[in-house]
Structure formats: structure tokens, C-alpha cells
């Protein structure tokens, strides 16, 4: 039954040109972006040279196993916004074309309609994980001076976190799309979310306990996967996942999908 519902969503999307354009751009940017790390390091080196400093970029193991995993995952996370916009388009289309209404008239329940969208989100998140893993594997094999299975399997648990991160954000986009129902406004809201939340948290920071900041939805993603680059400045980074940060992200993900369900259940479509 779940597979049947996923097929319905895929039938809608695979014949939609925007889907292929946005999907293609997403994976192209992910691939080319991930492969351009060395070029970025060269740029960094040139800039620093201008200040009379010198760094040996070859000593920064950006693409070495296991560093490559966390580096790629952290940077790749920024591109989830592209997928999110595609989700917004796919769900708000259903309201502007009124096809959500016809789907229900034709015999989908409101829950099933939502499930088709959630399953698609799971699929896009899983494909993102696979893409990033393949890109990481290729670049890692090219650049790593030492290749051993032990090094390759280190830090792989971060792919679970990456899956959560993408699925979390797509769930958020889906919920906003269902609540707002207009594509333009929803896309603007999705784009502004990080900024708005940052303004709120920074204004609150001095007045509330720290743990309260960590449970803000977009912040929960930042805490889930720490920025990995400070380790090249000889700083300690957290290279493991913590139960609390995973739990916070899971709770938000559940709530987003639940709010979407409530809205669909209660409204006249």
C-alpha cells in the first residue's frame, strides 16, 4: 500500500519538467560543489598570502578518509534548501490546480494524500544520502594518501544524521506548503526561516538558559552536526552524534508532519 502511494506521487512528478530541472540542478551543484573543495582551499591560500601568511593546503586533509564524510555532509546540508523549494512547488501546485481536492474525490483519504508526499520526502532524503556517499567515496579514494577499510567506515553514522537533516527540512517545507498553500509566499518563508530564527535566538540568548536555544528547530540541525572545519585550526570538534540532539530533531520532524496532518484533516479542501 505504501509503495502504491509512493508510485502515485512519482507519477505526478516524473512527468513534470520542473521536477527534473530542479532535481538535476540539485545533484549537479552537490557534485560539482563537493568536488571543488581543493579549488576553495587554493583561493583561501591566495587570500592569506596577501596578508603575508603562508599555508600549505596539501596538509589540510579535506578529502582524506574519514574527514571527507563530515566535511561533505556539513557543506551538502546547505543545498537541502533547493530540494525544499521543489517540495513546496509540488505541494502548493496541488492546491493551486485543486488537484488535492480531486485526488480526495477520486478516493484517496486525506491521510493517504499526505503520506504520498511524506514518502516522497523519505525517498529524496535517501537519494541525497546515496549521492553524497558516492561523491565522498570517489573524492576520498582520489585524495586519500592511505586507504583502509577502517578509515572509510569511520564517521559513517553521520550519514544517518544527514538523512535526518534533509528529511527534517523537507518535512518543514511540506508543512509550510500545506499551511500557506501559495507557492511564492511559502518559498519566501522557507528562505527566511534560518534568518528569522537567528534574530530571535540571538535576542533571547542573554535572557534564557542555553538549553532553550538548542531546541529551536533550525538550531537543532546546527547542533546535530557540528561544523567540522575548526579541527584544521587545531581545535577539538565533536565527531560523534549525541542522543539529545537526535531526539530534538526527531521531535520537530514528527511535529511538522503532524501539524500538516491536522491542517489537512480539519480544512475544507
Amino acid at each position, binding site marked *: 500500500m505504501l509503495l*502504491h502511494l509512493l*508510485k*502515485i506521487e512519482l*507519477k*505526478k512528478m516524473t*512527468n*513534470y*519538467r520542473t521536477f527534473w530541472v530542479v532535481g538535476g540542478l540539485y545533484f549537479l551543484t552537490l557534485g560539482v560543489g563537493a568536488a571543488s573543495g581543493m579549488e576553495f582551499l587554493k583561493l583561501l591560500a591566495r587570500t592569506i598570502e596577501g596578508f603575508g601568511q603562508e599555508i600549505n593546503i596539501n596538509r589540510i586533509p579535506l578529502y582524506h578518509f574519514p574527514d571527507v564524510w563530515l566535511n561533505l555532509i556539513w557543506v551538502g546540508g546547505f543545498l537541502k534548501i533547493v530540494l525544499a523549494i521543489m517540495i513546496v512547488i509540488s505541494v502548493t501546485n496541488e492546491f493551486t*490546480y*485543486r*488537484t488535492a*481536492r*480531486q*485526488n*480526495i*474525490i*477520486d*478516493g*484517496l*483519504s*486525506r491521510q*493517504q494524500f499526505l503520506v504520498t508526499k511524506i514518502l516522497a520526502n523519505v525517498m529524496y532524503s535517501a537519494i541525497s544520502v546515496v549521492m553524497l556517499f558516492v561523491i565522498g567515496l570517489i573524492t576520498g579514494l582520489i585524495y586519500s594518501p592511505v586507504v583502509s577499510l577502517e578509515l572509510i567506515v569511520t564517521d559513517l553514522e553521520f550519514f544517518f544524521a544527514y538523512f535526518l537533516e534533509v528529511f527534517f527540512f523537507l518535512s518543514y517545507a511540506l508543512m509550510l506548503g500545506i499551511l500557506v498553500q501559495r507557492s511564492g509566499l511559502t518559498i519566501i518563508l522557507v528562505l527566511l526561516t534560518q534568518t528569522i530564527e537567528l534574530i530571535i535566538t540571538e535576542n533571547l540568548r542573554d535572557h534564557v538558559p542555553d538549553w532553550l536555544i538548542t531546541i529551536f528547530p533550525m538550531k537543532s540541525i546546527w547542533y546535530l552536526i557540528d561544523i567540522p572545519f575548526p579541527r584544521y585550526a587545531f581545535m577539538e570538534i565533536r565527531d560523534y552524534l549525541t542522543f539529545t540532539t537526535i531526539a530534538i530533531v526527531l521531535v520537530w520532524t514528527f511535529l511538522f508532519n503532524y501539524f500538516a496532518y491536522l491542517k489537512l484533516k*480539519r*480544512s*475544507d*479542501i
Partner: protein
Amino acid sequence: MENVLSIRALTKTFGKLRAVNSLNLEVKAGQVFGMLGPNGSGKTTTLGMLMGVVNPTEGAFSWFGEPPSHDVRKKIGAVLEHPIFYPYLSGQKNLELNAMVKQCPTENIARVLDIVELTERRNDRYKTYSLGMKQRLAIASALLNDPTVLILDEPTNGLDPMGIADIRRLIKKIAESGKTIILASHLLDEVQKVCTHFAVLKRGNLVHVGPVDDVGNGAEVVEVKASIANLNEILMTFPGTSTINHENGSCHVTLRTGFHSVDVNRFLFENGIVASHLQTQKRSLEKMFIEILSESH
């Protein structure tokens, strides 16, 4: 006869507005049921509730004696207000998608496309279709799962006379195949021609329900013309005359029960008058509809 649909005290309010007010209605198998009412009388809201897209405020309804569910909707083919499809998909692809939702075999697609005569254009995108083609595709989609009940809401809206004739022919063809049809329409002439039963809604209230055959019942009116000056007075002496109205130079005689046009003709002839025009007026649904609406304040 088996109840296809029964509605009990169904109510929908939007804020202060009672769009549908405690509606009770039954539709039996094989009926072609017309839902009439001016714009905003609650027809589409009612159909929306029956098809699960509008949440009822109060009341209940059942399809085939079962409580409403999404599975029961798969046995019903419905087009509400206007055709809804994915504009970027072809007619064929749209129907394939509908077949997946309704969980019916895709082999039906060729057959329904044939019925609505869209086979040639099936691979063109939906957004390139004319309004008439869109309406026909909607009917094809409603027929896709070979439903026992068909709901059509203003299926001829916005069509040219050719398109209207096409759709009317199609509805008649479907009705002849024994399906139960619920047809909401403004076109009273159409309802009279196609429907077996009809209901009239006004501001959310059910003001009339009954068979279409009853429309012709009631007092007979005969229109009489003759080239004499005192036709009026002579007709007044006819024992079967109830009232007489003058319209466009002819006398409209409303007869008492038991009297018919043939009696008027005989009476005139016996009085040495030859009528130049004598016609029984059939009471139209249109006339009755306006009467019903003006009676129910």
C-alpha cells in the same frame, strides 16, 4: 428500491452563513436525480460534503448504506464545479494517474476516452485542451472505474451550443446504461429532459423534492386565438373555465379539473366559432422552478 444515498440533517456553516441547512434527501438506485437551485444555494457544498472534501458541521450521510469512507468514494465518479487535472500531463497520463488513485485497471482508459471522443487528443497536454474537451475528459475520468453512481456538477458550464449538445447526448447515453446519476445544473430544460427526479435547494434549504413527471400535472392551460371581438366573454360562459388571462392577443384559459383542450374546441365550435389557434401549454420545469422559489420565502 435500494438506497444509493441517504442524507440526514446534513448541515454546513461558514461562520454565520448556513450554506446547507439540515438537509434530508434520498437517492435510489437507477434514478437520474437533478439538483436545482440558484447560484449559492448550497448545491456544490452539499456535493463537496458527500465526496469528502468539505467537512460537515452537523448531520450524516451514507453511500450504499455504508458510512462514508475514502474506499466508498472509489465506487463513485464525480466532477465537482469544473474539471480538475494536472495541466502539464497529457489526457492519457492524467487518466493513468486517476486509475492509480481509484485502483482500477488501466485497460478502462481506452474505453472511456472513446466514449467521450478524445482518443485522438489523448497524448496532448491537458492545458492545450478546449473547455469542452476538458469537460469531456472530466466525464471520462468519472466513468473510469465503471462507477455505479455518477455525480456531475454543472457539466455544461461555459460550453458552446455544440458542446452542450455533446454532453447532453453523453449523459443520456450513460443514464440509459442504468447508472444512478446525480446532476446539479442551472439548465432546467436539461434536467427536465434527462432526469427522473429532482430536488430544489434555496439558500441551503431543501424546498422541493419529487419526480420530474409530476411537473406536468396540475391545471391545464389552453391558449386560444379566434378572429372575433368578444372571444373573452364567450369563453367565460364555458363551464370548464377557471380563469382567463390575456397575453399577446390570445386568451390563456386555465381549466377546471376534468376539462381538457378538446372540450374547449367542442364548446367553441358549438357556439359557431372557429379557433385560428388552439394549444395546450405544457407546464415546464422552468415555470415550476420559479414558482417553487417564489413560494418558499
